[in-house]
């Protein structure tokens, strides 16, 4: 066993001894991956896992480094990029990925991606292989 393998085993034993907690947070992440477009909140997620929402929030942040809400936002932004690349309109993309209003979606998209959805879509179109010379 080399040095790196020993370190992996050491960190695994130190930081991840509780399989039940891991199973809970991984289950929550998978649920959000499959249902990112639904109206998901902490109360709902804690009901699924039969645990308190504060406990769930702490566990998720401990194991993934971000809150469930932050993860859901990342997932939705990823999906919205895919929709925009495929030519879907901004408002349709907004509702498809689970945001409530196009204006809040555009604001959040610009904050996370650095450019607004319309400009992102335009840049994708300009970069598409069919347009390269």
């Amino acid at each position, binding site marked *: 066993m*080399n*040095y*790196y*393998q020993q370190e*992996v085993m050491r*960190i*695994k034993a130190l*930081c*991840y001894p509780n399989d039940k907690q*891991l199973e809970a*947070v*991984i289950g929550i*992440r998978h649920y959000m991956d499959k249902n990112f477009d639904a109206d998901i909140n902490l109360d709902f997620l804690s009901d699924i896992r039969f645990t308190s929402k504060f406990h769930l929030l702490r566990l998720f942040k401990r*194991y*993934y480094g971000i809150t469930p809400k932050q993860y859901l936002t990342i997932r939705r932004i990823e999906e919205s990029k895919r929709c925009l690349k495929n030519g879907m309109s901004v408002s349709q993309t907004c509702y498809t990925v689970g945001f409530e209003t196009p204006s809040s979606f555009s604001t959040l998209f610009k904050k996370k991606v650095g450019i607004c959805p319309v400009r992102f879509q335009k840049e994708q179109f300009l*970069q598409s292989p069919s347009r390269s010379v």
Partner: protein
Amino acid sequence: MKVRVIGIPVQDQDRALKFYTEILGFVKKHDVPVGGKNRWLTVVAREEQEGTEVLLEPSPDNFEPAKTYQKALFDAGIPYTQFDVDDVQQEYERLAALGVEFSMAPTAMGTVKIAVFNDTCGNNIQIVQML
């Protein structure tokens, strides 16, 4: 400030290009001569060709401390960098079938699964899947 390029030291640029494109599946992006037998040689992920470029840099050949550092990491089994995959087990089986040597088989560690292989150019590379 943006992240456009990350560098990986390689012992042989020709061999690295072959491994990173033909085995790992990356696509060549830039290949510019920069004096002697050195090139500014980058590859990108096939599905993100406008994304971050991986620079296959010939530093171990040109700068002794780079060679020393690379060897120390390699001997300890420490990955130089890591790439994301959807399914570590599937990628492990695909690469192993192509003759890639793994120093760590797929291993779950908390919320990720990892595996480590030899890139044939002096580095251990880790692949990661979020669980």
